[in-house]
C-alpha cells in the first residue's frame, strides 16, 4: 500500500480505466487490461463494449475473468463469434477503438517485446510470445500499454520486437505515470506522473533519455468510488 491508502498497481489500473470513454469498443487481454476495462464499465463508461480474442463481443462479466475463455464472457456477450472472425472482421477491419497491451519490455516508440529475453535462438527467458499483440497494436484506433516502470522493462533496445504501434494515439500507463506518443517521430513523452511521484523517479526507471512534456500533469489519486469498485472486483 502507498501512503494514500492505495497501491501503485491500483493507481495504475485506475489511471488506465480513466482513459476509456463511454461507448469505446475495447479489446482487452486478461489481467490488468481486462480489469481496467471492467472497472471503467462500472464507473464512467457503462456502455464501453468489451471484446475478447476468444470471440465474445459485448461481454458484461460480473466477476473478472481468469482466462479470456471463461464461460462468463460467452454467457454475458451480445454475440460470440469464431476466433478467425474476431481477428479478421472486427480487429483488422478497424472496429476496435482501444487495444490494451502488456509487455515485458518496451522501447521509446512503444514497440513491445513479449517473446524472449536474450537472443531468440537461445533465450534466457522464453516469454509467452505474440498472441494478438502485433495486430492489436497496428489495427486498434488507440493503443494503451500497461506495465510497471523499471529499467528492466523500459529499455534502449528490445531483445525482440513483438509488436509495433500503428499511427493512432498511443499511451503507456505505468505505476509511476503516463507516457504518450508525441507528434512527428512518435517518441514517448512523459505527460503525467501519479501523485507523489517525481519526474526524476520516472527518469531513473527508464532505460533511455526520457522526453518530458513542458508541463507534466499530476494524476489525481484514485477516488473512493474508484477504489471501492476496483476492490469489489478483486476481492
Amino acid at each position: 500500500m502507498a501512503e494514500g491508502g492505495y497501491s501503485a498497481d491500483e493507481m495504475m489500473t485506475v489511471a488506465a480505466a480513466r482513459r476509456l470513454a463511454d461507448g469505446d469498443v475495447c479489446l482487452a487481454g486478461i489481467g490488468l487490461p481486462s480489469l481496467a476495462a471492467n472497472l471503467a464499465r462500472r464507473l464512467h463508461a457503462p456502455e464501453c463494449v468489451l471484446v475478447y480474442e476468444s470471440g465474445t463481443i459485448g461481454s458484461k462479466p460480473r466477476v473478472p475473468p481468469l482466462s479470456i475463455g471463461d464461460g462468463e464472457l460467452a454467457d454475458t456477450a451480445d454475440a460470440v463469434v469464431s476466433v478467425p472472425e474476431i481477428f479478421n472482421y472486427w480487429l483488422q477491419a478497424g472496429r476496435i477503438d482501444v487495444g490494451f497491451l502488456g509487455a515485458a519490455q518496451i522501447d521509446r516508440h512503444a514497440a513491445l517485446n513479449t517473446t524472449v529475453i536474450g537472443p531468440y535462438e537461445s533465450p534466457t527467458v522464453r516469454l509467452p510470445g505474440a498472441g494478438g499483440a502485433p495486430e492489436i497494436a497496428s489495427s486498434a484506433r488507440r493503443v494503451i500499454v500497461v506495465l510497471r516502470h523499471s529499467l528492466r522493462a523500459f529499455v534502449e533496445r528490445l531483445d525482440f520486437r513483438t509488436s509495433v504501434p500503428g499511427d493512432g494515439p498511443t499511451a503507456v500507463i505505468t505505476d509511476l505515470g503516463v507516457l504518450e506518443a508525441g507528434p512527428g517521430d512518435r517518441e514517448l513523452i512523459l505527460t503525467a506522473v501519479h501523485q507523489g511521484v517525481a519526474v526524476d523517479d520516472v527518469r531513473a526507471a527508464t532505460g533511455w533519455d526520457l522526453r518530458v512534456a513542458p508541463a507534466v500533469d499530476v494524476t489525481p489519486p484514485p477516488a473512493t468510488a474508484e477504489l471501492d469498485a476496483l476492490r469489489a472486483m478483486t476481492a
Partner: protein
Amino acid sequence: MAEITTLAEAVAGLVGDGDLVALEGFTHLIPFAAAHEILRQGRRRLTLARMTPDVIYDQMIGMGAAERLIFSWGGNPGVGSLHRLRDAVERGWPVPLALEEHSHAGMANRYVAGASGLPMAVLRGYRGTDLGRVTPTVATVTCPFTGEELTAVPALNPDLTVVHAQQADRQGNVQLWGITGVQREAVLAATRSLVTVEEVVDRLEPRSGSVVLPGWVVTVVAVVPGGAHPSYASGYSTRDNAFYRDWDAISRQRERFTSWMREHVLG
C-alpha cells in the same frame, strides 16, 4: 459417417510418431483426455500445433512427446509461464523443442486457409515486428488492385486435429457451443479428425451459437465425459481455475512434474 469408438482405439488408429497434430480449443473445450491418451501410448517426435499451448501442451512437451511447436501464445492464462515449455526451449529438457511462432491472427488465418483448401491466407499483420525474421512461414504478397503489400501465411493442414465437443449423435454428427474458437477451421483443415464428446445423444437439439460438424467430415468420435478437464465444456462443467493456478507449482520443478504425470496421467 464418423466411427464411434473408445479413446484408446481412436488414438491408436489416428496418431503416429512424427505426425503434425493440432489439439485445439480456445481456453474452452481443450481436449486434455486425448492428450493424456497420446502420452500413455508413448507417441514421440510430434509436431504440435495450437494457438495457445496452455497446460495441455506443457504436459506433452514436458513428457518429451514433441520435437516442434507451432503456436502463437504460450502461457498459463491468467497465471504466468508454462514452465515445461520454457524448460524445453531454454534448456532442451527433456528434448529440444523447435519453435515456429506466429501471431493469433496469423495462426487463425493459417487454419482458415487450410479449411478452405487454399495454400495461403492473406492478412494485414506482423508489421514492423521481428516475427517475419525468425519465422520462415511469413511472407508478403502485393494486392494487384491497390499495390498494397500484405502479409501471407501458409495453410496449416494437420495430419490430425483433435477437439472436444459437448455432443455427438449416433451418426457421428458433432455439436459444440459456447466459445468455439478456431475448432471448425482446425477440423476442416486436417487430414484426419478426432472429436471427444461429453455424451452421445439420439438427436442434436438446435442450440444457440453452436457449431455443427457433419459426421462425414469427422473421422472418429470417442465418448469421454469430462475430457476437457481442467478446461471445461459449457453446459457440462466449469473451468477448474484452481487447477490452472496449482499447475504453476506442479510444473515448476522437473521431478515434481514427472511424478505428478506418472501418478495422474500415465498411471
